[in-house]
C-alpha cells in the first residue's frame, strides 16, 4: 500500500475538492477539533504517567532484589518465552500499521478500504489479547508469588485492559463510521482512536523490552 508522494498529493487535491463541495465545513469545527485533539493528547500523557508509576515500582523492586528473577520456594523463576513474546508483539505492531491505513483510507474517502483495515485491526488486537491469555496460562510465576509476578501481571494486565478498551473503542468507531456519524472533514473520533491505538502499541514496546528482553 506504499503510496508515492505524487499520488498522495493528487489524492489530497481530490479530497480538498470533495470537502469544498460538501460545504458543511463549520468554521467552528477547526477550533473544536484542535481543542479535542489537545485534550486527547493530554489524556494519553496522563495515561503514560499511570504506566510509568508501575514501571518505577517494577524497577525499584527489581534493583533492590538480591537476585533476579527472584527465587520462590527454593526454585529460581525461569525467563519468559521470548519467541512467543516477539510474535505477539508483531501482531500488535501490525494492528498499529493497519489502523494507520484505516485512517488514511478514510481521509481519502475510501469507505470500503476503511472497513477492511479497521476490521483487520480489531482482529489483530483480539489476536494479541489471546496471545496474552496464552502467556498468562503458561507463565512460570504467579501474581502473588513474587515481586516479578506482581509487576509482570499488574503491568501487562493493565496494558491488556487498555488493549481490550481499545478494541471496544475501535468497534464503536467502525459502527459509527458506517452509520455516517463521521464525514470526510469531521472525523476526530477516528483520529482519537488511531492515536490511542498507537499509544497502546508504544506502551507494549516498553513492556516487551522490560519483561522479555532485559
Amino acid at each position, binding site marked *: 500500500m506504499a503510496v508515492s508522494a505524487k499520488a498522495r498529493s493528487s489524492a489530497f487535491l481530490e479530497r480538498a475538492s470533495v470537502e469544498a463541495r460538501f460545504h458543511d465545513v463549520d*468554521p*467552528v469545527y*477547526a*477550533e473544536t477539533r*484542535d*481543542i479535542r485533539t*489537545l*485534550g486527547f493528547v*493530554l*489524556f494519553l*500523557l*496522563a*495515561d503514560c*504517567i*499511570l504506566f510509568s*508509576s*508501575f514501571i*518505577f*515500582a517494577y524497577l*525499584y*523492586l527489581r534493583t*533492590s*532484589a538480591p537476585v533476579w528473577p*527472584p527465587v*520462590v520456594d527454593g526454585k529460581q523463576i525461569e525467563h519468559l518465552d521470548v519467541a512467543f513474546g516477539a510474535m505477539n508483539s508483531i501482531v500488535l505492531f501490525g494492528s498499529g500499521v493497519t489502523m494507520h491505513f484505516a485512517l488514511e483510507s478514510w481521509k481519502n474517502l475510501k469507505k470500503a478500504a476503511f472497513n477492511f483495515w479497521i476490521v483487520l485491526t480489531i482482529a489483530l488486537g483480539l489476536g494479541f489479547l489471546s496471545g496474552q491469555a496464552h502467556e498468562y496460562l503458561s507463565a512460570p510465576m504467579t*501474581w*502473588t*508469588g*513474587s*515481586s*516479578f*509476578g*506482581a*509487576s509482570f*501481571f*499488574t503491568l501487562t494486565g493493565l496494558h491488556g485492559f487498555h488493549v481490550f478498551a481499545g478494541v471496544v473503542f475501535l468497534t464503536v468507531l467502525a459502527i459509527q463510521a458506517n452509520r455516517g456519524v463521521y464525514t470526510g472533514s469531521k472525523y476526530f473520533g477516528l483520529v482519537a482512536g488511531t492515536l490511542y491505538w498507537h499509544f497502546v502499541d508504544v506502551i507494549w514496546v516498553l513492556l516487551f523490552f522490560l519483561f522479555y528482553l532485559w
Partner: protein
Amino acid sequence: MDVAAHPVEQHEAHDHIHPAPTGFIQKYVFSIDHKVIAIQYFVTGLLFMLIAGSFAELMRIQLWNPKGTFMDYHTFNQMFTMHGTVMVWLVLIPLVTGSLGNLVMPLQIGARDVAFPWLNMLSFWLIPVSGLILFSAFLLPDGAPAAGWTEYPPISIQQGTGGIFYCLAIIVVGISSTLTGLNFLVTIFKMRAPGMTWTRMPLFTWATFATALINLFATVALSAALLALLFAQAFNVPFFDPARGGSPILYQHMFWFYSHPAVYIFILPAFGVISEVLPTFARKTIFGYKMIAFSSLAIAILGFAVWAHHMFPSGIAPWLQIPFMILTYLIGIPTGIKIFSWMATLWGGRIQFTTPMMYALAFLGTFSFGGITGVYLACVPVDFHEHGSYFVVAHFHYVVGGGAVAAFFAGFYYWFPKATGRMLSEKMGHLSFWLFMIGLTGTFMPMHWLGLEGMPRRYASYEVFAKAFPDAVFWNRFESLSSSLMVLSVLLVAINIIVSLRSGRRAGNNPWGARTLEWMISSPAPYYNFKKIPIVLDKPYDFTQPLPYRNLDDEHQDPYPVPSEAALPRGATAAVGA
C-alpha cells in the same frame, strides 16, 4: 492604546452561543455551565468540610484527657484518618480547583465555558460518588480506614476492608481531579480571548494553569499507588510484602510522588487568589507580575522533585536525603519572591479592610510562618527529631489552614457577589475572620512546642508523654478550646451565605472596582458569559490606566472602575472627584 496599534483578527469561532439550558435538572443538577458546577463544588466542599471538621473536634475532645477515655483507640484512628482523607481530597482540592477555578478562570480569560463542559460535569459528580464510597466504609465491621490519610502498608492492608474502600474512593476522586486538570489546561491553552497573550493573563488564571499541570500529571501516580495498594490488600499481591520480594518503602515513594505536588495543588490557587485580592483592595498594580507568574510555574515543577522529604527517617538510603533536602530548600525561593512581591504590592496603596483583604493580609503572616517551619522539616537532622511529631501537624495546619483555607475564604468573599449577585455581610465576615484566625493560632501554635518536646502524632492517649511533660495537658486543653472558635467561624460563614442570599445588598457588575474580565459582566453572569468576546490589550492591574479591553458587552463601561458604596466599610466614601 487604541485598537489600530493592536491588529487582532476577530475570532468568530467563539461567537456562536449554544441554546440556553431548560428545566430544573439541566439548569441546576446536571448542568454543564461552569458557574453552576462551581457552586455545586462549593456546596459539596463546605458540607464535607463541616463533617471532617467535626471529626477534628471529636479528636480534640479525646485529647482533652491524657488517658484518652472519650473514645476507644480504633475509633480515634478512624477519626484522624477520615479527617485527613476527606479534608485533602473532598474539601480542599474540590474547593480550590473545582469551585474557585471553575467559577473564575473561564470568566477571566473571556471564554464562554471550559473546553469540555460535559467532562466538567462528570468531574464534579465523581466527588459525591467518591464521598459515598469513602463514608460507607464506616458501616464495615472493622470500620473506616484507620492508618492515617497516607495509609502506609503493611499496617493499612492488615486493618480490615476499610482500606479497599479508601483506595476505590480516592481513585475515583483522582479521576475527577485529573479530568479537571486536563479541562483547565486545554481551556487556558486554546480558549483565551483574542489579544490575551500569556503575559496579559490574570494571575489567578496563571495559578490555575500551574495547578492544572500538577493535577494532570501527579494525580495519576496516586491512582497507580492506590491501585497497587488495592491489589496488595484484596489479592495479596506482594508489592509491599518484604517476605515475598516487595518493599513497604515503595508505597511511600509512589504515594508521596503525588502527595507533595498535591499540597501545591492546594496552595497555588491560594496564591492566585492573593494575587487578585491584594491589588484590588490596595487600589494598586500587582508588584512583579512576571516574577509571580513564573514563580507559580517554578513551584509547580519543583514540586515534583521533592517528595522524599516526607520520608527522611523511613529507611531510605542516607545519601538520598541530601538531594531532596536541597530541592526542598530551593522551593523556598520562588515562594519568598511571591511573598515579598505581595508586600511590595501593599506599599503605597489605598488599602480597604474588606473581609477578603483581611484574609489576604492574615495569609501573608500565617502562611509565611508555616513556610518557615517547613524549612525546619526540610532540614534532615532536625527532621529526625520532628518527623512524626506534633511539630509536623502544626506546620501543615499553618500552611493548609492559615494558607490554603484562609486564601480560599478570601476568594470566596471576593467572588461570592459575582457568583450570586448578592453582597455578603461585612460584619459577619469580619467576625468569622477573627474567630478563624484566633482559633487557628490557639489550636496550632502550641502544637509546635508539644512536638518539639516529643509528643508523637496520631496518639489517642498521651499518658506517658504527659507524665514526662506535665504542661502538655494544659496545652492540649487550650488547643481543644481554641478549635471550637474555628468551628464557630465556619458556621458563621454558612449563616452569612444563607442570610445574604435572601437579603444581601445587590452587587452590581463590579462591587469592588476590580479590573479583571469577570467584573465586566453582570453578577450573576448569564450562562453564555460574554455576548461579544472582548479583546484584551494589556495586563489588567494598573489602576492609573484605562481598562485595556475593547469590544466589551457593556458599551458604557467606566474605564476607571471604582468600588461601589456597597463594598466599602461604612462611612468610607465621598462624592466622586470631590
